[in-house]
């Protein structure tokens, strides 16, 4: 028994003697002590928290080789493997996590809209609560700098580029026909409903090597990964009605949405400058199916819409007016998959198919054009460390265009071409520190139509100048094949090209954002032809060129005034081109030299209402006056538009929404149309190009039916 006690004591003693003290200090990379860091031996209970001097000390009974870990919020977790006996007077230096929110961001040229991200200038809700946007994401983006005010068109014209120079992608996959058809005096809208998307990235230049066939801009829309809940949405509007439903299951969900718009009742109350024979009517349906796998997410998105209208429009050369009839059908399918392959590898890929058909009758001309297009893409991402990431992939665009043309003198002319393009790209992100980052990439494209290879380098750099400000630089070469209105007549051409040079400063603190960006764009190989319009017998070449330079300023402040959020955008643009039928270098007619946009929103808590306004100002665009010598020799008067909106929450699930576009009734003039021949006095008469209606009114009632009786459609408006 005595012996037993001795053994017991010896064993206890052994145990006691095994107890080691581990101590040291935790510092950041500037040798400043970090208080509150968690220091512990992995897999054990032994550990401690650093004191205000960064020091820690704790005892452990562990022996031999162990892993010591030090973790601290916003820093990379440190770990060291060694014998506990030697873990004394340690000095641990933690490195700042480059993935944290206050790290430098590669943001030159980019505007983002999303939740809780530092570089966001817009929130998803802004799309629907901006007075002038009328629920259209394109309309909301037009309040950002770098966009031109081309009120009768409605598409995105970015930094001296034409609308075709901007490409739109859904979940990384190209959309070939993003805009709805309209008459030539009313703005178009984005085809896809904004509430399907929860992330919007709008890049006005210098974008990633992942994107090609866009000379000016890319707009990236990401569909919602997982809807919050099951619900039914009903909307009754002055223009039509919408109905939506979302169902959720264990690993998948389905959202469907249908809408019908008919402008007949509206036109009856508010006459427009168009003489309608059959008012604008469109029916559309969308469906999104999402399925979650253990390590991936599959999304299938399909949209169909059919639009028709028929009218007679004023024309200076046709006293009777110009007859115009359109029937458009559009089908879009997009399937995409994102998955994780291992700790460091991930993959994403997708396929889209577009079928668009336009059946037009203009005076006595019958035009039927069909576009079928496919985009397939796969990209891989490899994360070597938090500081070095590689992204590479390949894609294929197939696009077939076919047009049937006939009029009194010509019968059944057929224009048909295939524009197929292969591309591969690779890009790396390198974070030298939390304050300095690079992105460099390369894109190789091959156009089957022209049998032409193009190589585009892309580069950007960002440097953090203080806690809340940073400077960025970006450079890139971009190529794009000419659009269908050229290619249908001539395919013996080359890709048009541009180079972007961008310098960006960004200040971002406490819900205030300031951005200033200067840029220069050098255009080459633009298409030129020798007739007034692009025609089948014109002579085409790639000798066009031009430049665009300017300054974009943006300021948003959600902090200074209580319940008030506002932003101001200003763009100065100086651009000239010698392309198309231009006799010399001139400022194109889709360019405003100065653009100013002001958006304000005010939340009135007692009224449960949000009221908002947006104001746009733009200097006049060029037009050609044949009564004086020269080409694009005069400028129209300035453009003004003030719009207001009001959203009222009747109950948690019922909203009343109203908006008035151009509430002050400014008489805007987009340009002039001149007679083809001079009158008796030798003067070419003209007609002002005015919008179909100066003002636009919208009233809607939106009702959401859901389990939790809380959600509403404020984010759908």
């Amino acid at each position: 028994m005595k012996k037993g006690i001795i053994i017991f004591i010896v064993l206890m003693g052994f145990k006691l003697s095994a107890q080691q003290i581990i101590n040291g200090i935790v510092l950041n990379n500037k040798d400043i002590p970090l208080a509150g860091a968690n220091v512990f031996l992995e897999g054990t209970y032994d550990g401690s928290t650093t004191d205000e001097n960064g020091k820690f000390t704790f005892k452990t009974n562990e022996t031999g080789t162990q892993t010591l870990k030090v973790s601290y919020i916003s820093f990379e977790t440190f770990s060291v493997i060694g014998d506990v006996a030697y873990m004394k007077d340690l000095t641990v230096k933690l490195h700042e996590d480059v993935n944290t929110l206050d790290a430098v961001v590669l943001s030159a040229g980019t505007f983002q809209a999303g939740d809780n991200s530092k570089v966001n200038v817009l929130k998803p809700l802004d799309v629907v609560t901006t007075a002038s946007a009328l629920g259209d994401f394109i309309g909301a983006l037009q309040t950002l700098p770098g966009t031109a005010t081309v009120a009768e068109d409605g598409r995105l014209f970015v930094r001296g580029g034409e609308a075709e120079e901007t490409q739109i992608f859904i979940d990384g996959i190209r959309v070939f026909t993003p805009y709805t058809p309209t008459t030539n005096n009313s703005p178009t809208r984005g085809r896809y409903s904004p509430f399907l998307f929860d992330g919007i990235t709008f890049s006005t230049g210098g974008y990633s090597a992942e994107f090609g066939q866009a000379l000016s801009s890319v707009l990236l829309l990401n569909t919602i990964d997982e809807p919050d809940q099951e619900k039914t949405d009903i909307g009754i509007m002055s223009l039509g009605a919408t109905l939506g439903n979302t169902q959720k299951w264990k690993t998948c969900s389905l959202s469907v949405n249908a809408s019908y718009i008919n402008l007949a009742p509206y036109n009856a109350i508010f006459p427009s400058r168009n003489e309608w024979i059959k008012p604008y009517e469109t029916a559309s349906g969308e469906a999104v199916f999402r399925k979650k796998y253990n390590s991936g997410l599959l999304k299938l998105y399909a949209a169909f819409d059919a639009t028709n209208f028929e009218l007679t429009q004023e024309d200076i050369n046709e006293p009777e007016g110009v007859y115009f009839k359109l029937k458009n059908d559009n089908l879009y399918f997009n399937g995409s998959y994102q998955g994780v392959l291992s700790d460091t590898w991930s993959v994403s890929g997708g396929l889209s198919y577009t079928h668009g058909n336009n059946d037009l009758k203009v005076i006595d001309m019958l035009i039927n054009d069909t576009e079928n297009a496919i985009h397939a893409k796969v990209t891989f991402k490899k994360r070597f460390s938090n500081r070095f990431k590689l992204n590479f992939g390949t894609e294929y665009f197939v696009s077939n265009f076919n047009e049937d043309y006939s009029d009194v003198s010509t019968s059944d002319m057929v224009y048909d071409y295939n524009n197929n393009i292969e591309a591969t790209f690779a890009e790396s992100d390198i974070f030298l520190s939390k304050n300095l980052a690079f992105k460099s990439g390369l894109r190789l494209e091959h156009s089957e139509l022209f049998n032409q290879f193009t190589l585009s380098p892309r580069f950007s750099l960002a440097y953090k100048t203080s806690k809340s400000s940073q400077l960025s630089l970006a450079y890139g070469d971009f190529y794009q094949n000419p659009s269908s209105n050229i290619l249908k007549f001539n395919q013996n051409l080359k890709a048009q090209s541009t180079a972007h040079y961008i310098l960006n400063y960004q200040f971002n603190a406490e819900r205030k954002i300031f951005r200033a960006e200067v840029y220069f764009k050098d255009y080459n190989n633009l298409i030129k032809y020798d007739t007034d319009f692009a025609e089948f017998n014109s002579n085409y070449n790639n000798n066009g060129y031009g430049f665009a330079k300017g300054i974009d300023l943006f300021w948003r402040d959600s902090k200074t005034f209580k319940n008030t959020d506002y932003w101001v955008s200003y763009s100065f643009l100086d651009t000239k081109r010698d392309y198309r039928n231009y006799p010399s270098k001139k400022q194109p007619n889709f360019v405003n030299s100065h653009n100013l946009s002001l958006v304000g929103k005010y939340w009135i808590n007692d009224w449960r209402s949000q009221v908002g306004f947006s104001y746009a100002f733009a200097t006049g665009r060029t037009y050609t006056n044949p009564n004086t010598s020269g080409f694009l020799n005069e400028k129209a008067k300035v453009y003004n538009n003030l719009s207001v909106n009001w959203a009222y929450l009747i109950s948690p699930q019922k909203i009343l929404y109203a908006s008035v576009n151009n509430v002050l009734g400014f008489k805007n003039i987009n340009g002039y149309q001149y007679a083809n021949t001079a009158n008796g006095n030798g003067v070419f008469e003209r007609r002002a190009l005015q919008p179909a209606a100066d003002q636009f009114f919208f009233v809607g009632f939106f009702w959401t039916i859901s389990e939790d009786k809380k959600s509403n459609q404020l984010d759908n408006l």
Partner: protein
Amino acid sequence: MQKLVIISVIFVTSLLNAQSNYEKGMQKAFELWGSNNPIEASNMFERIANAEPDNWLPPYYAAQVNIVNSFGLRDEDELTAQLKKAQDLINDATAISKNNPEILVLQALLYTAWVAYDGATYGMTMSPKVGAIYAQAEQIAPENPRVVYCKAEWGIGGAKYFGQDTKPFCNDLERSLELFANFKPETPFHPNWGENRVKMLLESCKE
């Protein structure tokens, strides 16, 4: 025989040690939290989580400390970092225990922290999420007092805002009090908080 006694003593001691390590650790962490040392408490819970990879309680409490601590923070960067950390911990807990009503309640509280920070900005996007999570939790555990009371408290906030009757939610609070009285946590360390809050809320219901 003596040897056997000694071996068994040592064995039992080490067994007791192993068990009490967890208990001691958890107790210590709760003490730290109680004595207003949330950072140390969170670190302690995280260390336990590290040593007990199959137990959802340590990451659950580490997340709760961070969420509770974030209410009242005014610096958005700090709030974002802290709630991101809490979200990671909730994800850890969820990976161990799926469809757990207690963890769902915590997730709803995390979203509520955003709404509390800035209702005008986050109310519209986060509210549907909160509502959907409570609906899901209620389906799984209709008799869990925290599910019933947190859902009711969330409902009272909304009803007050829209000038609607808060009576049905106050009735739910009453019901949760009964549920609290009958609630038996699985172990002393399983969630058992909220009863005092309900009493406080019921006071304001009577006003």
